[in-house]
C-alpha cells in the first residue's frame, strides 16, 4: 500500500506535494529537499541592548528540542538565504505543559510568573534570543528588520550541549554575552520543575555571566528573578566594561576570581559558552586544574581563523579538481573547499558556512581533506562539509 504522501506525489511529480502546497500558502509547505522547514515569526520583543527575544512557530511535527540545543535559522536578505545558528531558549512544549498542570494544582513549589518558559504552555512556538552585532548580518536583520509574520527556514534542533550530556550533580555555567542563551534554556527547564531542587539536577547551580553592562543583559531581568526565587541557583554577573566604556581589567576570568565566586569550580560539571577570549581563558584554566573532563564547550563562532591558522600552519598546500565542472585550482592550505569553489566561479549549495547545517556536504572522489574543527582526515568516498574542510593533497570533489 503506498503511503498517502506517495499517492499525492503521483499528482505533483516531479515536485513534492509539500512544494506545491507551499506555493499556495508558505505555511503548508512543510519540508524542503534538504529536510529544512518553514517557520513563521510569532512575536518579537526587544531586550537588553540592541537585542530581541523572538518566538517562532515551527511547522506541525517539528521535532522537540532538548534544552541547550540550537537550531539553524535561514532568513532571506536581499534575495539570498543567510543561515546562522541560535540556541532555542524556550523550554520544550511537553515540559511547559507539565509545568502548567503542576502550577494549576497550586503546589507549594510553583514558580512565579516572573520566570517565563520562553513561550506559553499551549503554544508550539520556540524562542530564540538574538544579540545584534555590527558584523552580524543575520542577527542585525532579526533584531532590526524582521517583522511578526515573516517566514524563516528552520533546521532541526541539534547539538549535545545539554543537561542530559552530563551526570547529575552540581553545575557551573561560565558564560559571556549571548553565550547565556544555552544556560538560560537549561535553567528554565530546571525551574519548570519548581523551586525545590529539580530531579534532573540533584545539586545546585552557579552561573558566572559576563556582560558588557547590566543594561545589556538579555531576558528582561528574568535571570535575576530566578536567582532571587530559586534556592538552588546563584548568579554572579560581571560587567566587562567600566562606566566610561573602557574594558574592565578586573573582569577577566582567573583562578582567583573563580575561587572567589565558586570555590568548588573545578569539581562541578561546567558549561562554557561565550566570546572567544572567555572560551580560551576558560579552557586553559580547566586544563591547568586538570579538570578539562568536567567541561563542555559550545562554539558558535566561525572556525575560520580561530582554528584554521594554527592547525594548518604545517599542513601541505593541496590542489583541488572540481570533477563535474572540470575546473582545477591550487590551494594555499588555509582556504576551505567551499571558498575555493566559489573563487573558481562555482556556486555550491551552502548554508551556515561553519560546519553545522550540512547543506554543503559534498562527496570526495579522491585525495584527503582535513576537518578544521577537529583535525580529522577524510578519504576518498567520504562526504565532507566543504565549508570547514581544506584539501591536504590532491583532492577531486564532486562539484
Amino acid at each position, binding site marked *: 500500500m503506498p503511503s498517502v504522501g506517495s499517492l499525492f506525489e503521483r499528482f505533483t511529480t516531479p515536485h513534492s506535494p509539500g512544494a506545491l502546497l507551499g506555493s499556495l500558502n508558505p505555511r503548508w509547505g512543510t519540508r524542503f529537499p534538504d529536510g529544512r522547514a518553514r517557520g513563521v515569526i510569532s512575536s518579537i520583543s526587544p531586550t537588553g541592548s540592541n537585542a530581541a527575544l523572538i518566538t517562532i512557530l515551527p511547522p506541525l511535527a517539528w521535532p522537540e528540542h532538548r534544552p541547550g540545543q540550537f537550531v539553524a535559522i535561514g532568513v532571506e536578505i536581499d534575495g*539570498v538565504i543567510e543561515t546562522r545558528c541560535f540556541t532555542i531558549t524556550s523550554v520544550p512544549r511537553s515540559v511547559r505543559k507539565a509545568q502548567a498542570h503542576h502550577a494549576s494544582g497550586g503546589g507549594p513549589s510553583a514558580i512565579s510568573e516572573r520566570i517565563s518558559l520562553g513561550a506559553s504552555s499551549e503554544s508550539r512556538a520556540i524562542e530564540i534570543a538574538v544579540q545584534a552585532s555590527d558584523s552580524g548580518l543575520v542577527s542585525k536583520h532579526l533584531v532590526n528588520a524582521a517583522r511578526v509574520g515573516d517566514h524563516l527556514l528552520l533546521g532541526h534542533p541539534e547539538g549535545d550541549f545539554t543537561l542530559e550530556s552530563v551526570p547529575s550533580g552540581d553545575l557551573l555555567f561560565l558564560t559571556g554575552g549571548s553565550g547565556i542563551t544555552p544556560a538560560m534554556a537549561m535553567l528554565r527547564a530546571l525551574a519548570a520543575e519548581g523551586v525545590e531542587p529539580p530531579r534532573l539536577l540533584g545539586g545546585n547551580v552557579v552561573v558566572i555571566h559576563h556582560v558588557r553592562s547590566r543594561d545589556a543583559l538579555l531576558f528582561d531581568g528574568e535571570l535575576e528573578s530566578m536567582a532571587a526565587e530559586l534556592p538552588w541557583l546563584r548568579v554572579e554577573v560581571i560587567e566587562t566594561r567600566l562606566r566610561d566604556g573602557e574594558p574592565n581589567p578586573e573582569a577577566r576570568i582567573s583562578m582567583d576570581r573563580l575561587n572567589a565566586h565558586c570555590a568548588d569550580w573545578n569539581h562541578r560539571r561546567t558549561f562554557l559558552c561565550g566570546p572567544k577570549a572567555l572560551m580560551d581563558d576558560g579552557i586553559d584554566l580547566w586544563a591547568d586544574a586538570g579538570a578539562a573532563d568536567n567541561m563542555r564547550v559550545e562554539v558558535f563562532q566561525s572556525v575560520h581563523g580561530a582554528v584554521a591558522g594554527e592547525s594548518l600552519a604545517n599542513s601541505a598546500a593541496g590542489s583541488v579538481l572540481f570533477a563535474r565542472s572540470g575546473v582545477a585550482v591550487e590551494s594555499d592550505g588555509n582556504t576551505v573547499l567551499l571558498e575555493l569553489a566559489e573563487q573558481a566561479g562555482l556556486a555550491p549549495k551552502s548554508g551556515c558556512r561553519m560546519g553545522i547545517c550540512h547543506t554543503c556536504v559534498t562527496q570526495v572522489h579522491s585525495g584527503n581533506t582535513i576537518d578544521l574543527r577537529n583535525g580529522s582526515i577524510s578519504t576518498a568516498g567520504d562526504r565532507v562539509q566543504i565549508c570547514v574542510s581544506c584539501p591536504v593533497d590532491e583532492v577531486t570533489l564532486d562539484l
Partner: protein
Amino acid sequence: METLTGTNATRSDPVAGWQVREDPGADALPRPKGRPAGFDADRFAAELDAVGDQVMSSLGQADADHIRDLVKLQRRLELAGRAALMAGGRVRPMFLVGTTLLSLSKILENMEIGHNVMHGQWDWMRDPEINSTDWDWDNVCPADQWKHTHNHMHHQWTNIRGLDSDIGYGLMRFDPDEQWEPRHRYQPLVFVGLALAFEYGVALHHAENLSVRGEESGQPDSERMAMVFAKMRSQAIKDYAAWPAASLPFGIGAVISSLAGSVVANIVRNLWAFAVIFCGHFPDGVTFFDPEDVEGEAKGDYYRRQVLGSVNFTGGRVMDIMTGNLDHQIEHHIFPDMPANRYSEIQPEIRKICERHGVTYNTRSMRAQFGSVVRKAFTLSRRPA
C-alpha cells in the same frame, strides 16, 4: 555549467576545458584557426565580461522575487487548469480554459523556470528548493541527464559539428555543409513528428548521447535508460491516469476532459518549445563550426563562437517570459548562468559590443527566424545538385 578562467584562458584539448595560459609569450602564439584577422579576442571578452560582472554583482531581492513569484504563479496556473478541466465535463468552455491554463503552466515550468533553474541561474539565492541540484522539471527528460548534455555538451560546444549533438538533434540536416544522406529525404516528416513529441525526442536524444559519450559519465546505458523510462512513466501517470481518475466523481465527461486537456497541453508545450529552441541555433545566417575551429581558442573566440552560433528574436516582456528568455539566445549563450530576467536589459549593450568587434549579431522576428528554419527543413532534405 562552464567556468572560464581569465581572459587569456586558452583551450587546446577540446575535452580538457579552459586552462590559464601561463606562457608569458602568449602573444607570439599563432592566431587560432577560427579567429579572423583583426579580431581582438581579449578585448571582446573583457568588454562582455564587464557587462556580465556588473549584472552579477547587482543581483538582489527583485531578482529573487521574480523567480519565486513565477514559481508560485505557475503552480497556481496548473491547479486552476486541472480544476477547470474537471469542470470541463459539464461546462464545455471550461475545457478550453483548463487546457489553455495547463499549457501555459507547462510552458512556464519548462522554460522560464526549469531550464533556467537547472542552469544554476538561481543558485546564488541558496534557496533550498529553487536550485540546480535538487530541481526537476515537468518533462520526461530526467534533470540530471539534461544538465549534463545541455549545460555541458551543447553550451560548451555550441554548433560545433560532431561535438554539439543538438544540431538537428542528429535527425535532421540544418547545416548545408553536412553530408546529405538518403534518410534526410524524410526530414519534413521528422520535423513535424519531433515538434509534436518534442519532450520524448529530447529525452531519448539526451540519453543516447550520454551513451555515445559513455566516457564522460560512469553510468551504464541500461541504468540511464531505466531513468528515462521511470521519468516517462511517472509523468504519464500524473497527466493521463492520476488527474483523470481524480476527475471521476464529476462524471465520465470530466475524466475525458482531464485526459484530453493533458494531452493537448503537453503537445502545445512541445510545439512551442520546439519552435523556440529551433529558432535558437538553426535559422539562416547562423554559423556552424568544425572541431579544428576551436583549437587554441581564447575566451574571446569562445564568446564569438557563441554569438555566431546563436540567434535572437524580437518580442516584448510576454515573449521573454514565454520563451524562458531564450528570445535572448545570444545573451544566454554568453552568460548561461546569469538570471534570465536580466538578459533583456543587457541586450542593447551586448549588441553594440558585437557590432563594434565585427561579430554578426543575428536578430529578427520569430516569424522570420522560424520561417527560415522550416524552409531549411525542406530545402536541405533534398539531395544537393
